[in-house]
């Protein structure tokens, strides 16, 4: 299936989907050194974002979360792309400064966990 969204940071990436049905907080929710999701109660707790196409409705929490994405990228453990229903400031800024392809305005419920996903500009194919 091919969905057309809106490019927040344009780029190409391919990876397996890591899907959260609830909002994601990077600050305090993801270990910036390992990429492991550590947020208590998160359905993805214990999994790593490294190299995955991270799919979630929108970000939440502190604006410092943008810098966590940057640190993940510098440590080589960032997601290879981000797909959101509605991107907000924290994720958008984080994706831009970390140069992680990011698309929003996509029906994220259509993307199945672990499905191979290709992101290219504003399109998401899986």
């Amino acid at each position, binding site marked *: 299936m091919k969905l057309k969204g*809106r490019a*927040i*940071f344009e780029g190409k990436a391919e990876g397996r989907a890591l899907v959260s049905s609830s909002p994601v907080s990077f600050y305090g929710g993801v270990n*910036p050194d390992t990429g492991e999701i550590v947020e208590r109660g998160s359905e993805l707790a214990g999994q790593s974002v490294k190299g995955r196409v991270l799919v979630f409705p929108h970000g939440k929490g502190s*604006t*410092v979360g*943008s*810098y*966590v994405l*940057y*640190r993940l990228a*510098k440590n080589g453990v960032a997601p290879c792309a981000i797909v959101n229903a*509605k*991107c*907000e*400031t*924290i994720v*958008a*800024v984080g994706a*831009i*400064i970390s140069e992680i392809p990011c698309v*929003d305005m996509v029906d994220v419920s259509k993307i199945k966990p672990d499905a191979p996903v290709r992101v290219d500009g504003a399109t998401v194919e899986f």
Partner: protein
Amino acid sequence: MHLTREEEAMLAGEQGHATQKAMQILVALGKIYDAERLVRVSSVQVSGVSYKNLGDAGLEFLSELARDGKARVRTTLNPAGMSLTDWEAQGIESGFAEKQLKVIDAYARLGAEITCTCTPYLAGNEPAFGQHIAWGESSAVVYANSVIGARTNREGGPSALAASLTGRTPLYGLHLPEKRVPTIGVNVEAHLRLPEDFSVMGYYVGRAAKDGIPYFRGIGRASLEDLKTLSAALASSGGVAMFHIDGMTPEAGMPHGNLEALTFGRRELSETDSMLSDEGEPDFISVGCPHCSLTELATLARLLGGRRVSREFWVCCSREVKRQGDEAGYSRVIEESGAKFALDTCMVVAPIEELGYKVVATNSAKACHYLRNAGLRVRFIPLEECVEEATKGG
């Protein structure tokens, strides 16, 4: 979103890497929030200065931008995690200090003024009514929008910096007059005697208003200190970026529809007040969240004159207000009591919990909120009682 030719050039990287990154951030935010275009800003207040909040990732990002980025408009800074000159006396570890000074150095190279205060409006960065600005620091955002009538959204660290490096911000939200109308009424029935009562009210209303715009009725008078602490509290328990006070703030007269209203009475005041405090004997006392005004320094000098403090007592303010306090003779009296000025920093952004303190007494609901999040216990008491507490047995 419409971009001018110059803005297109910035986006294309013709004016350097940092400017391009900044423009990418602004364009993305403009897209997300449906801005028609960018608008020029007259000043920027950058949050994300304390190394405690930035961490190595933030420092690395700033250092990268500082390679070829330069502020295009007046840019002032939020407090750092320590005094930039007297950090050793504050008990700050050298490892932390080294990183904090690198952060400051990056901001200096970016052309920011090293003001390190959360009250830029008391330290020379005073916007005018109707001016577009891009400010981080949630308490200053509320004060600037509400009390001054300048226009800013609640910026995060990187988006404020992006505004500084381009001189622009996307035109949406509180930059538009129609987005500045009140969304919730507050009937004030409690008698607000002290600035701390305004702080409590802000904390109560912030939780109910979330990111709305409260419209207060029934406040007869309010000092700068009242409005400063109200602004801070509204932005810490909720996401408030602006309020109106009937008959007082500059845009309170704008037409608006019927508002659902909540009541802030004696019960709400006393319940919220007691909710802000934990048990325990304070071992650290601090005032100045937001940073003290000259009037507060005058009050402290009057209360501390001829007395000695027996516990660690921090008076947080900007270097500019401290300088005014020096001239007026207040600073000397305060320091002679053994109280310490905490310049460039405050109890919230300095690593207090790592200095070994357990229970903090303060007159700020905002400080109570964040110190609790950092794992400390807090006592919320008025300024005068803070002085009593600090001088007990001394």
